[in-house]
């Protein structure tokens, strides 16, 4: 690798798309479950508040 190419690689390294994809899927997966939990808790809270004696 020539000196200019090495400098460019250090400044703009190539992305590991496979790992990045996996991380994105994992983030989506976590978001899905947290969203389910939030929606469930919000719904239950609203039903509880509507029906407090």
């Amino acid at each position: 690798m020539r000196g200019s190419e090495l400098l460019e690689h250090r400044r703009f390294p190539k992305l590991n798309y496979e790992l990045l994809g996996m991380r994105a899927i994992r983030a989506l997966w976590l978001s899905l479950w947290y969203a389910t939990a939030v929606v469930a808790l919000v719904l239950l809270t609203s039903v509880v508040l509507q029906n407090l004696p």
Partner: protein
Amino acid sequence: MTLPDYLEPAQAAPLQLRDIGPASDTQPPSRSAFVIVAIALSVVALGIECYQYLVLGAYWDHIDCSILISGWQHVHGAPLYELQDGAPVLANLYGPLAYLVQMPALLLFGAGVAASKVTSFLALGTTVAVMGVHMVRRSTTGQALDGFFLLTAGLLLFGPVSFWVRADPFEVLLVALAVVLTAGRRGGTCVGVCIGLAVNFKVHAFVYFLPILVDLWWTGGWRALLRVAMFSGMTFFIPFLIPGISLHDYFVTVSEQVAGGTVSSSLMVKNTIYAVVILPLLVLPLIAHQHQFRDKVYAWIVLATLGLLFYPASSQGAGPHHFLPLLPVLIEARRRLEPEGIAAEFAPFLIVLTASFAMQGTLHNMASKRGWDLVSEEALAVARHSPVQPIQIGYGESPKSYEISELSKTVLAFNFYPVLLGAQILNELREIGIEGSTRWIPYLTECRIKRWLLPKGEKPFTTISYYDRSQLFSKEFRQAFFTRYKLVETTEHFDLWDCAHERQ
């Protein structure tokens, strides 16, 4: 310079499947916080449902009424499974304990609607305590939280079934006791007694114990199962030693109705929805990581039992509440599988999500029954001031007035105005092709019932079956009624019909 791990070169850790899988998720405090909030909310929600049911002054439905009438009248000398022309008069296909279990509270606190619910609430509370102690003793804090989460969310999902005046709250308690006592020194004996009692409540209840039985066989072999069979058989028959409870008549009633029952497609859809919500509770931990073979077998048997319960749960008049007594073994299976990862840990939130809708429906149904206690009080006042006896509550035409009639009959039975006939059993008989009302025509033609209280302004005895929408009372029955009885008075909610023959 260190590179972020989503960049080359190869300093980034080699990619593993577990990086996106659940096994890599350690339990951050935020997840525990979510679970704790969910437990607190579920407990409050369950408390609201229980309170609303306790102060309602009515029952969830007519089956509760029928159970209490039969039980109360048995305590006061009537036979429990009385047959008339080969068909039951009042009691349904439940076992004797379903009718008797509420009676001590009624005798202790005085017969009333609220008092009749106390034992079911006690069963619910004991289940929570038994499973709570079990989880705290046998699990880590995280597992105990997970178990308690599923317990409270599950009890909420099945709404009134967890505390209504029927066999189900007691079956949940017996399965919970069996889960806790299996590992004990006398595990076989205790499980046997629990199965015997549960089958005495409902004949198919042994199904809920299948995972426990397989586990017992695993540790104690065939000898343990033999002990279970012996003690469950002995326990099952004990209530039939009580005078007025005929084993023969019970088996006739059960065999007739089990053989004649049909499957409802709408219930199958409803059951499938519940099963879809329940399945991830075990399937996700099962696929997340490796487990001991015994624990995997336990979980798979729980899933197989869920499948087996589809048939009784899909019969006409049944429903997904048949899955409720499986809750303690479901919790135990999850405890053994040690759920790890976001999906396995958060699967009970699917239960909470569904339970929110179920709770809204439950409370809406309860709200629609507010004020019915005033109608039943009026019926009691009319009965007390009636110059002629015996007096009976009859039926009108609407499903609402049918439910109010059943409640009023229960209140009258509690106050020693015996119930001679009821439309609830006619529904069950109609479903198996038996017309049950014609046998009661002599009650009318011979004026054995002097006065009827019928829903005001409704056509007498035109109630329709909740199974096939057909008329519950035969044309001959109605004809006999109109021939013999005349409308004599009207109160706020009732038309009073007296036997015209007696008045002449």
